[in-house]
């Protein structure tokens, strides 16, 4: 069990800034996120898109903002637990125990939920049968490509993941690349490589069609795709790979007994505490009168939440409000001489 002052759930911009606000107050934190890297929606949804409303930063991309925040919190050496989703939150008197799907356990007086709209998960195939084949014949990512050797593989999607894996796996398997329209979003270079392979029969490209049904008992035998004109084609398939990007799912947060409003958590706007003492919610996931889903609002929210976190983590110490410009203590914590 890992003991700390604050468990931060979500490594988006607000979760990262939480490390800073806690850090300057001398509090330790761990950050847990289901994605494989920090940045949340900024890095997953719009890494290259510009953001124009960060105060004093006229323009930056989601990726740049993430990088800068990581740089800003470097002095605090927070431990990151990525690729992990928090499944369980339990109370132990005045403290909280948090368990992840990777069997890590954390213990702290404070939890800050900076979970955005929930955790990112792969978008699943729409047909009903897809679920029972998941993990056996249907995959939403490739961990070990050896598994896909000398097989018939049907790949769904029109972006880079679909194109890249079609190209890679075509080295040792028969590939069907299936997309709902004839235009692909992926890199033109990859597409032209694929078109070459199509000519010598390594890859077969099927466009303007979508998955209609799946045949098979334990494992997939074949799939049926339906074209826009209504025509159905049966395709012999051992494995289906589907790349329709990621979707945000609220997931287990809904079961932690917090007061919720649709997909958001109710907080007070004084210290952003939820209906449970010591659990705070900040950023897009919190809700209070006048809430705006802006990054800058999240920064403010977590600054206030961190004060209450201090009071809970250091009940015997007096909280002193300090400025970073003039506080020797804070400058020490930042590693400034």
């Amino acid at each position, binding site marked *: 069990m890992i003991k700390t002052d604050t468990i931060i759930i979500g490594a988006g911009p607000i979760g990262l800034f939480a490390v800073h606000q806690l850090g300057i107050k001398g509090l330790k934190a761990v950050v847990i996120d289901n994605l494989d890297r920090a940045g949340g929606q900024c890095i997953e949804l719009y890494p290259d898109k510009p953001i124009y409303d960060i105060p004093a930063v006229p323009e930056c991309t989601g990726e740049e903002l993430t990088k800068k925040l990581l740089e800003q919190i470097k002095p605090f050496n927070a431990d990151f637990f990525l690729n992990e989703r928090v499944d369980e939150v339990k109370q132990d008197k005045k403290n909280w125990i948090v368990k992840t799907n990777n069997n890590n356990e954390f213990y702290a007086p404070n939890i800050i939920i900076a979970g955005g709209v929930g955790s990112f998960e792969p*978008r699943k195939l*729409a047909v009903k049968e897809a679920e029972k084949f998941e993990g056996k014949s249907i995959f939403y990512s490739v961990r070990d490509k050896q598994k896909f050797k000398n097989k018939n593989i049907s790949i769904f999607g029109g*972006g880079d993941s679909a194109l890249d894996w079609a190209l890679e796996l075509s080295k040792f398997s028969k590939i069907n690349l299936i997309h709902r329209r004839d235009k692909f*979003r992926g890199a033109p270079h990859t597409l032209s490589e694929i078109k070459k392979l199509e000519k010598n029969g390594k890859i077969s490209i099927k466009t303007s069609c979508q998955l209609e049904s799946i045949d098979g008992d334990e494992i997939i035998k074949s799939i049926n795709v339906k074209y826009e004109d209504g025509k159905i084609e049966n395709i012999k398939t051992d494995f289906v790979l589907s790349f*329709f990007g990621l979707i*945000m799912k609220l997931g287990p947060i809904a079961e932690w007994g917090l007061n919720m409003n649709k997909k958001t958590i109710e907080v007070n706007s004084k210290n952003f505490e939820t209906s449970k003492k010591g659990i705070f919610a900040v950023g897009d996931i919190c809700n209070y009168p006048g809430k705006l889903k802006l990054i800058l609002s999240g920064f403010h929210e977590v600054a206030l939440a961190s004060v209450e976190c201090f009071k809970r983590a250091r009940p015997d110490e007096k909280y002193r409000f300090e400025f970073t410009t003039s506080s020797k203590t804070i400058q020490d914590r930042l590693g400034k001489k």
Partner: protein
Amino acid sequence: MPKITYQDDKGNSKTIEVENGLTVMEGAIQNDIPGIDADCGGSMACATCHVYVEEKWLDKIQKAEEAEVDMIDMAYEPKKNSRLSCQLIVTDELDGLKVTTPAQQS
């Protein structure tokens, strides 16, 4: 104010007045119309405000830009008349528009 009709996949529909300048997505969210999630808040980054536009309106609404069509690739059961409702801005010309929400958004 223009009237917009939101129909779910089972055929239940609700017609509401939506202020000019709002998006069809915002009209739904502000009036608690189920079936539109809009997780990203309207930044064309999630495809959870996906709707099917009634055929006769397809020529009257503004055409989807490439980024929207790319995003619709990710939507649940996209069709020819699929649009992201966060990109449909309500004007007087859209009075009477009917959209249908898919069986689910993700």
